[in-house]
């Protein structure tokens, strides 16, 4: 409270305790990555993330999916969570779309690539070269995956 002077408190009328309250976070757009989704907008995502909460909080939600399937095949397995289509505004099919981070159960984090990025981002010149090679260079997502030598385990 000393640092965040914008925060306010309320007294819980039941217990009488004083609590700090913060305004809810409502992102304009949430982009979440999911293993599977359908054209009608339902998706399944990794249970350890808070993707459903994020989708429900945001004004608009874009789900990037590894695989498009029929609505009845969008079923959560162990460690997966179902997100109903009412919370999703757009579904984008992009296999490998989470690279260089992981899509749990499908591919792991590309640590070698992240190391390369961290090294490149130390100075302006390195970062520009990185951006040219991986972001601006490839014409589309498939070319990007080729350039980074993407493989699903």
């Amino acid at each position, binding site marked *: 409270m000393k640092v965040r002077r914008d925060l306010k408190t309320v007294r819980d009328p039941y217990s009488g305790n004083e609590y700090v309250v913060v305004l809810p976070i*409502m992102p304009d757009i949430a982009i979440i990555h999911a293993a599977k989704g359908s054209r009608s907008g*339902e998706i399944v995502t990794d249970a350890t993330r808070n993707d*459903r909460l994020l989708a*429900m909080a945001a*004004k608009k939600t874009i789900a990037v999916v590894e695989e498009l399937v029929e*609505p009845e095949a969008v079923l959560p397995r162990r460690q997966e*969570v*179902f*997100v*109903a*289509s*009412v*919370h999703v505004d757009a579904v984008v099919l992009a296999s490998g779309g989470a690279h260089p981070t992981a899509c749990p159960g499908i591919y792991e984090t590309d640590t070698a690539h992240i190391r390369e990025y961290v090294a490149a981002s130390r100075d302006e010149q390195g970062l520009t070269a990185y951006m040219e090679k991986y972001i601006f260079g490839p014409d589309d997502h498939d070319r990007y995956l080729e350039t980074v030598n993407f493989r699903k385990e």
Partner: protein
Amino acid sequence: MTKPTISNQPVQTPEVMIGAISGLLRDGEWVATGTLSPIPAAAALLAKMTHAPHLTTLIYGDPDFRLSEGFHELFALAQKGKIDVFFLSGVQIDKQGHINLSMLGDYDHPTVRLPGGAGSSMLSALVRRVILFTTSHNRRLFVPKVDFINATAADDSPWRRGGLSHVVTPLCMMVFDGTKKEIILECLFPGVSLEEVVRNTGFDLGIGERRIPIMNPLTDEELAVLRGPVQERMRRIYPQFAASVWGS
């Protein structure tokens, strides 16, 4: 599934109500229906299949409508302001548009205990338009003053987004006058007399010198869609209602 005889039958009262409600829904809106709401559900489907193809229909109880966890997600959507239209009813409805779903008589010594308001209070304040529908029309239902207020039609709360829009009954359609903050009669359904509506309503319908028009809520094309694809969907969602209207 569709019985060929359906098309020859005269238009039935629930069909008239479905047509009237469908006409109130606008293209692009998000329309949600709660429990025990077959008439609004059919109206939402009819609107989507006719004049409002971009309607988003959230029909609770529809096996094809999947939520992630439960009904609380509809409340969350209402809180976010995503739901434009919701449907409620009441055991009592009064001229100010209050609805009662809790009890009859004195609150501490009720003569009848009712199921309760559920989400009606919150939803009526957080959606943009509420449409009330009733399956009967008499003076026990339309009373001068409700015994208990579960939801109000309008108030000055800063967080309130909208309020009561219309009331659709088996006899007529009423509209909520936002200036006077009271329900007035808008139109009669075919075959219903003004005298019949007045006799069965326990409050003044604000008719005055107005000529009350008779609404024909369904075109031939809409009736065909209602008795065709809407009826088929309703067999899955509300099988008992569908059987009672369109036969088994």
